[in-house]
């Protein structure tokens, strides 16, 4: 394969910028490097993609984990390029494509808002659409607006195959524009952003897993794959009668079994061996620090990323039961969303019976929310300090769960990595 000279020069400049950023201690430098590359070679993504992008993965929640599951499965065919860090806007995509072997298969996570642009540039074989719900409303589009942009994108790219979650009516609305769709029953716990039909505004009628619109007749499509979730273990079930046991997945919770089921449907489209795919998915332990156990200061934590109500609603189930205390760290930097109003959409009432340690820049917002949820709480700016006034039960735990918003999560991860160095 031959890359344009312009792209090659841009890659060198981008790598230099990334390295400078890393040396300066400003993170992994992917975004900076990518920006430099795109400035010098605006069509670098298309040039680097060059027909080797097997799949793009987008969703409000779970895209990093799903991408990792899928990339692990794809390695049965040889080397795969994929972003290890969740860098998912155009700058992250271009850096990822430039990093690996030039003809390796690419499996890319893409931010919801950037998906149309990245689809046009990379011409992927498959697009996986997981779920859409409210997230960072201060800077992102409203949910229905994103779905409309996806529709336009799919109408303009008739060759792509879409694997979509049929249980999310907003995703269904977007995906039905595609010529080839594989519908997957991945489940939907958070329904507040798909209460009404995105087309005609009628309140959707729901009956167990089925949903339909009495206004325009839209309904849950027939699925090719379904997640069956029973007593904490999942099975991916196909219409043709195939059953794939997902109980050995190391990523916890129903939502990760759902991510795996969607990934299995993509693997089928790409012609992978499905048993081998699941085996490789089960080898994934922590994804970019999610669910990793780390030491921060005087405390051993399990890191949980919880950045919006839909994610939270699923995550509470993977926490140990009350009265085990938990730490919750809420920030409101740009990447978290500046507006923490979403805390009022999280069913924190389900944490009753334990003490919540409220931390992060917006710990006072969390404290007011917990006050209204009748959840016992203490507000501590640095709960990891040796002399932090932690409740006794927290000190007694070997590992305490710490759910954190995006930047709070990364602060903890970085601090743990720094402190782990001798």
């Amino acid at each position, binding site marked *: 394969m031959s890359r344009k000279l312009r792209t090659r020069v841009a890659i060198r400049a981008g790598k230099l910028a990334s390295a400078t950023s890393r040396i300066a201690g400003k993170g992994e430098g992917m975004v900076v490097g990518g920006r430099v590359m795109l400035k010098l070679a605006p069509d670098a993504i298309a040039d680097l993609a060059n027909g080797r992008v097997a799949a793009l993965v987008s969703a409000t929640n779970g895209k990093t984990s799903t991408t990792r599951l899928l990339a692990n499965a794809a390695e049965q065919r040889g080397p795969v390029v994929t972003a290890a860090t969740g860098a998912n806007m155009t700058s992250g995509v271009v850096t990822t494509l430039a990093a690996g072997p030039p003809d390796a298969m690419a499996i890319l996570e893409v931010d919801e808002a950037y998906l149309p642009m990245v689809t046009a540039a990379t011409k992927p074989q498959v697009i996986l659409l997981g779920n859409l719900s409210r997230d960072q409303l201060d800077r992102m589009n409203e949910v*229905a607006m994103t779905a409309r942009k996806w529709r336009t994108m799919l109408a303009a790219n008739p060759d792509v195959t879409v694997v979509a979650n049929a249980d999310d009516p907003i995703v269904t609305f977007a995906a039905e524009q595609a010529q080839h769709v594989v519908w997957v029953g991945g489940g939907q716990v958070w329904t507040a952003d798909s209460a009404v039909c*995105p087309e005609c505004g009628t309140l959707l009628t729901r009956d167990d897993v089925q949903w339909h619109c009495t206004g325009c007749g839209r309904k849950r499509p027939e699925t090719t794959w379904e997640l069956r979730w029973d007593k904490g273990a999942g099975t991916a079930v196909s219409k043709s009668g195939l059953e794939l046991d997902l109980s050995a997945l190391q990523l916890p919770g129903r939502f990760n079994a759902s991510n795996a089921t969607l990934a299995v449907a993509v693997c089928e489209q790409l012609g992978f061996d499905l048993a081998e795919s699941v085996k490789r998915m089960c080898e994934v332990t922590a994804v970019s620090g999610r669910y990793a156990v780390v030491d921060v200061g005087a405390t051993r934590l399990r890191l949980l990323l919880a950045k919006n109500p839909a994610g939270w609603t699923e995550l509470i189930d993977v926490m140990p039961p009350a009265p085990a205390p938990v730490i919750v760290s809420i920030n409101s930097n740009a990447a978290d969303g*500046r507006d923490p*109003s979403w805390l*009022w959409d999280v069913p924190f009432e389900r944490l009753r019976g334990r003490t919540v340690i409220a931390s992060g820049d917006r710990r*006072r917002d969390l404290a007011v929310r917990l006050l*209204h949820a009748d959840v016992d709480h203490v507000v501590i700016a640095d709960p990891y300090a040796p002399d932090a006034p932690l409740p006794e039960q927290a000190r007694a735990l070997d590992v305490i769960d710490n759910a954190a918003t995006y930047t709070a999560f990364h602060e903890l991860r970085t601090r743990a990595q720094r402190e782990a160095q001798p």
Partner: protein
Amino acid sequence: MSDSVIRIVSIYPSLLGTYGDGGNVLALSHRARMHGLTTEVAEISPGQAVPRHGDLYVLGGGEDTAQVAAADALRADRGLAQAISNGASLLAICAGYQLIGEEFPDATGTPSPGVGILDIRTDRLPKRAVGELLATPSPNAPAKLTEPLTGYENHAGATHLGPDALPLAQVESGVGNGDVSEGAISGRVVGTYLHGPCLARNPQLADLLLGWVLDRDLEPLVEREVEELRAERLDYVRRSGR
């Protein structure tokens, strides 16, 4: 009100609840409990009749399609307008605020008819208003409102008040209605762009609404968590703007 239970009606939370609006209903029940009062909450879905005999109605914010659907349903039902003319109180936030007026823009910017409970008209701001909003109660606002109003705004509406509506507050930082005023008040109807949710961050406003239902003023009660949050937010906005 009757039987000393305050009947709160949350209208269409499935359509209008984008910005943590459920928190306003929680805050009303919470403040009522602090004052030794009992509340019951009815959540009304579109298609269900809006009860005529509630004491305090709450409308939240929502996306464009949902906003038009809610306005159409409320006009057809007529229950809300009837309850207000019978003396019930109403808090309407953001999209809910716009839709109780005469008209508001739909997803394409075309004027869409409102419920006509408040004398306001909304069109588009030149630029979407997103950020912390801090406002001082207007001279015409009820005397019980003395503290600054704090919250977050995220809307594209420029709201113009007619002669039958008065501004709720004057903007200190942020956009509000778009003409330095923020929100509107008329009788026992309050509309505002403050979400966050507004009543948890502004307990005086919650007490004002509850006091209207009881026809008496409530004792000022403070909670440490709430005061600490208010102090932090006021300080943040005054130091760094939005």
